[in-house]
């Protein structure tokens, strides 16, 4: 390239004119991807709506089997992690790399807490035989509380929704570990923090989806 400017900073890829264009492109790409994610979960929400409209009493009955306390704790944990990821971006903007790393670390920790709580919730249900599909084999006490013949469908939807959401949390943890390592290598500064910004966007969406899942699954009466 004859006019491939020599002043190109190292982080700007060859096909972008400048840092701003790269940043705006990355951000827009992530927003488009988030639209994608919303439609992806939209299918699950749609299945939820259809089956809830058909079997309203099943949903109120089955929701009693879910642990509101731990679900609520998890909601607070995730909202907290959204705050820390926002603070991580703020640190990056202010060129405070140490603050960036600390905030990323807290976010990772909170995400792990979420997954651990989720693990114990799953583990407790599977122990009682509340498992998806063909593994549906509840204990007699559970069957007494949950007499609805379609009860396994509610838990099919529950496991799909929380399972797919959980996968997104795991991906988020992976991404933030990657960011943490890169931040340690000095890749980010107030000049360049695009990956932090767009991972933050992703993380807020994962959080937001949980904010919808929690009342829809746990809090119905």
């Amino acid at each position: 390239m004859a006019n491939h400017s020599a002043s190109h900073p190292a982080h700007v890829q060859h096909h972008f004119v400048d840092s701003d264009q790269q940043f705006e492109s990355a951000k827009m790409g992530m927003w488009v991807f988030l639209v994608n994610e919303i439609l992806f979960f939209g299918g699950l929400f749609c299945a939820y709506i259809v089956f809830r409209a058909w079997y309203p009493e099943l949903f109120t009955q089955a929701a009693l089997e879910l642990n509101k306390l731990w679900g609520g704790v998890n909601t607070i944990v995730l909202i907290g992690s959204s705050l820390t990821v926002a603070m991580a971006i703020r640190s990056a903007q202010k060129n405070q790399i140490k603050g960036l790393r600390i905030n990323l670390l807290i976010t990772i920790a909170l995400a792990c807490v979420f997954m651990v709580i989720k693990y114990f919730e799953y583990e407790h249900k599977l122990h009682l035989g509340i498992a998806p599909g063909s593994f549906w084999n509840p204990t007699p006490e559970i069957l007494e509380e949950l007499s609805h013949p379609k009860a396994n469908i509610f838990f099919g939807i529950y496991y799909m929704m929380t399972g797919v959401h959980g996968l997104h949390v795991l991906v988020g943890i992976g991404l933030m570990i990657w960011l943490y390592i890169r931040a340690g290598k000095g890749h980010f500064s107030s000049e360049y923090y695009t990956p932090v910004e767009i991972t933050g966007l992703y993380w807020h969406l994962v959080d937001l989806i949980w904010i919808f899942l929690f009342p829809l699954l746990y809090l119905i009466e």
Partner: protein
Amino acid sequence: MAAAQSKNMTTLQVKRFKPSENPTNTYLTDEKGVWAWMTTVDHKKIGLMYLVAVAFFFALAGFLAIALRTELWTPAKTFIEADTYNQLFTLHGAMMVFFVLVPSIPAALGNFVLPMQLGAKDVAFPRLNLASFYIYVIGAVFTFISLANNGFDTGWTFYTPYSSDTNSLGVIWVTLGVFILGFSSILTGTNFITTIHKLRAPGITWDKLPLNIWALYATSVIQVLATPVLAITILLLSMENILDIGIFDPAKGGDPVLYQHFFWFYSHPAVYIMIVPGFGIISEVITTFSKKHIFGYWAIALSSLAIAFIGFLVWGHHMFTSGQSAVATTVFSFLTFLVGIPTGIKILNWVATLYKGSIEMKTPMLYVFIFLFLFTIGGFTGIMLGALSVDIHLHDTYYVVAHFHYVMMGGTLMALLAGLHYWWPKMTGKMYNETLGKISAVLIFIGFNMTFLPQFVMGAQGMPRRYYNYIDQFQPFHQTSTIGSYILGAAFLIILYYLVRSLFGGEKASANPWNSRGLEWQATSPPDFHNFDHTPVVINGPYDYHKPMEEFQLGLAVEHNGHGHGEHHEVKTDQTEKA
């Protein structure tokens, strides 16, 4: 050098230059070796890799089609078993839809052309672009694993309970394959939307965007909004097979009509993913070979978006007889008729573009005419199928088969062939054999109509689709159809022959063999690794055929090094002077 003032008073330096006719360094000579190709992030090479993959699957699925037609030569068994027949038509449909039609124009030709038409060096996310190709390959591998596990015979739609009752291992693999494949489509769409918004060269305002870009934009919007719904549907279907969660399968308490709603919520918009980019190619080719400004630029541009929008509201017309409510059926029927309006607007504008143009009957243009003819038949028969009372009679017959082959093969594939011939000199730097090109185009036209016109007739008379046996009265129609498919097969072999041959012994292509006004033709043939020697400043619109050719040289952004936001750096032609 000359200076031009833009609206917000930024001064841009504009220099005129001509593309070199004998480029020494092109994207094909830039890096060599298999590894360099496999790891390339260059949109042009990725486009070519997609083209080869799509051609491979097209050949495979086409071969299956010929086998199917051969089997239908006689009313009873001709040479394959009924079960094999079921698997073969399923495979033909699934491969054509998911591996050929969906990626063909956007991922193969679009990948090559889109950044060039925008004056960009690459798409916004080149590595994602490469990833999308490999995701496509992985999806293909899953499908082949499925074939090794007794295959699948559910029809390409994977309706429950077929897909949850029969041979679940093969179905699990292929549905996971389609799930994976969806991400390749999503990534391409995301990439294109971002590229069109953020990477336009200076001077390319939204009203100077080539119509091919508008079409790819509309396509990408559908890809981004519809494909994730397919992904979750297919994921639920896989879980239905693996875990028996019971959302779709009636035996497990689920609802098969819910599956159909979910499936068609993607798959109806998906037919617009297949055809809308074809519309873009037609707009480009028809202006180039009519030597005339496109008629109704905004009408064509916005009708693509209108199709994308209305296309989301018509999925229920696939389910008129599936037991959805009468009210829903009526509404979907009405909305289906509405899609005909923007499509009709396009056809009329293309025909108006031809009016008083100086038409040059080169091979790409021949395919445009074939497209106009076949696609119009396909469109009108679609309106008939959208009419409720008619559909009760025609649903699940060969009439439907003929209809979607007229729109998908007569529409998308003809547009693909038009685009392939049109951009072949740009992609390869070689000219194909024009005589053989025309002969095969005519053969395709004859073979196509012989194959699918009789299917309208026997469908209207009651021949159901997907049947292995049929009553004797349909034999003449089936036999005509089979002979037609052989002619089609032969024509495609001729195309393969002369295209491959042109690579080795073809005449060298000039930078702009068609005298097109499009930006991509202002680069060398084949283009440089960065597409253009310099970041171009676009001074003229893509269809300004009323201006003499010598005005179609590019400006060169010096001061700002070609910032990607056309609207901030608009260059006024009347303010530029000759250097």
